[in-house]
């Protein structure tokens, strides 16, 4: 049955190989359906926030900044937005410092129990956020050291859920960094600290910045952990939005959503400049 391929058959084969690279149309359709599911609710929020009427209809009655202005002039909404911003910034700084320090040890040293220690730092991701918030709330109430109903108490919860992201991103940057560069600096007479500061830090700074951005945005959008820890005086934006959706359902909430969407898009654009998103994968449990 063996036969020699003619040049025409070879051309057909090479054409087929080229077309193999194209993605089948059925998969493309499926992919765009998923994109619509992911992005349609976001588009609806933007439209509802810029709509001139009280209810969103399709097509919209007209564009106006009515709800945006209502958001910008409402002390309650601006307070929640500002509080979330402050909470996310404080969380980001603490998480980045703690997480970077831990990541340096976890990825530069080999010692017994390292994998267990890594799992130790990832464990807040496995615990449901509501349970973590509840555990912290009970802990604050029982120990009675002034953390219950305080911003510090909220920051602690947010650091616990954002730190694993910093550790992951910084570890990835450290693994990609060639240790021999630091060794070269040492052999040329630099002290360990100088070599670290002048060689390693500049090389991993993009990873650290990406981890910090992630910590900021995870904290800014955090609902579950804040549920038990927030009070009427300390209301982050997600909790304020939840209360509004439960009871009033006003378009001002959509206007607040627009500002949160802008923040997330900007953060992701910054992240994509800092690290290659191609390498980005899900969080690993095992």
């Amino acid at each position, binding site marked *: 049955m063996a036969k020699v391929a003619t040049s025409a058959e070879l051309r057909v084969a090479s054409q087929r*190989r080229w077309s*193999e*690279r194209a*993605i*089948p149309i*059925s998969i493309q359709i*499926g*992919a765009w*359906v*998923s994109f619509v*599911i*992911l*992005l*349609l609710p976001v588009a*609806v*929020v933007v439209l509802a926030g810029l709509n001139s009427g009280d209810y969103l209809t*399709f097509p919209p009655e007209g564009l106006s900044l009515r709800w945006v202005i209502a958001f910008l002039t409402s002390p309650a909404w601006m307070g929640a937005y500002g509080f979330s911003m402050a909470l996310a910034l404080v969380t980001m700084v603490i998480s980045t410092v703690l997480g970077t*320090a*831990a990541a340096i*040890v976890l990825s530069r*040293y*080999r*010692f*017994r129990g390292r994998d267990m220690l890594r799992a130790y*730092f990832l*464990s*807040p991701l*496995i615990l*449901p956020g*509501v*349970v973590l918030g*509840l*555990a912290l709330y*009970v*802990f604050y109430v029982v120990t009675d050291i002034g953390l219950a109903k305080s911003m510090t108490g909220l920051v602690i919860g947010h*650091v616990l859920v954002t730190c694993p992201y910093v550790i992951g991103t910084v570890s990835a940057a450290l693994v990609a960094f060639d240790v021999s560069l630091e*060794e070269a600096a*040492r052999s040329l007479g630099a002290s*360990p600290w100088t070599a670290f500061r002048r060689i390693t830090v500049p090389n991993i700074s993009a990873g650290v910045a990406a981890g910090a951005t992630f910590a900021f945005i*995870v904290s800014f959008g955090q*609902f*579950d952990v804040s*549920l*038990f820890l927030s009070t009427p005086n300390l209301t982050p934006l*997600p909790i304020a*939005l*939840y209360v509004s*959706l439960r009871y009033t359902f006003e378009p001002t*909430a*959509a206007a607040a*959503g627009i500002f*949160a*969407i802008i923040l*997330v898009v900007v953060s992701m654009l910054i992240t994509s400049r800092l690290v290659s*998103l*191609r390498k*980005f994968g*899900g*969080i690993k*449990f095992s």
Partner: protein
Amino acid sequence: MNTMDLTSSPYQNSFGRSVRVFLGGSRVFWLILPAFAFFLIFFFVPVLSLFLISLDKPVAGVVEPQWSFTATNFIRFFTRDTYYGAALRSIEMATLVALITLVLGYPLAFMIARTENPGRNTFYMILVLCAMQLDMVIRLYGLMVLLGDNGLINRALLDAGWIEEPLPLMYNFSGVVIGLVQFSLPLMVLSLIGVIRSINPSLEEAARSLGATRRAAFWRIIVPLSMPGILAGSLLVFAISISSYVVPALMGGWKVIVMPIHIYQQIAELGKWQFGAAIAVVLFATSVLAVVVYQRYAAITAGGRT
């Protein structure tokens, strides 16, 4: 001993060495201490205390541990159908959500993994990551405007004359499932992309050159080889769906009572701390059980290429 000794002998693994490292052989090692202490004090101690409280006898309004070690709360949970029914409903719901997100997420992950143009690829990734990072409550606002009785979808269908009555798209079980699918789809996609990208294209080419159709090559080569990603993604989606409070609360309109809602009600409304803690323990145990099941199956399907 200085830092370079440690990094230049990376495969040394003796216990004595790690103890020496731990006790100050290297000053750099102490960098891990703040994070370690922080997690110990504010994560492990509170979580273990919560587990302890779940074993206390139920006294309304009392938070302090009583060290009474009784299974009353758990017996109550597993003998009243309101509670174990909620657990079963949570599991059923999370399983359904995992299946739907898999079917929806796979084509998207496949398209992103096979898009070679770096600009397009980054653009797709930014879209998925933005959708994931955006606060779920904001996305729920959009979903509620779309799915309500007076929402955009029902209005469009009524105006077109295709339906007489608004379809019950939310404030019921299916509404919660739709919300959770929207919530967890990005995580499924991210779990699948890496695995699909790592499949060697020559395996598919080999199947094709041996006469398989594209469809057959896809179902018999690509899909089985993406099994580790399918399992990891399904587990993640299961775990975050079962622990979500805000999606069932808003999309279910208090008609779909799942475990996180029971926890909140027991504690914030009834002051039953011990029983609320017990439900939290059951919720956590369910997530852990999913991880254990996953690891058993992952070992089988990975076929040695972990």
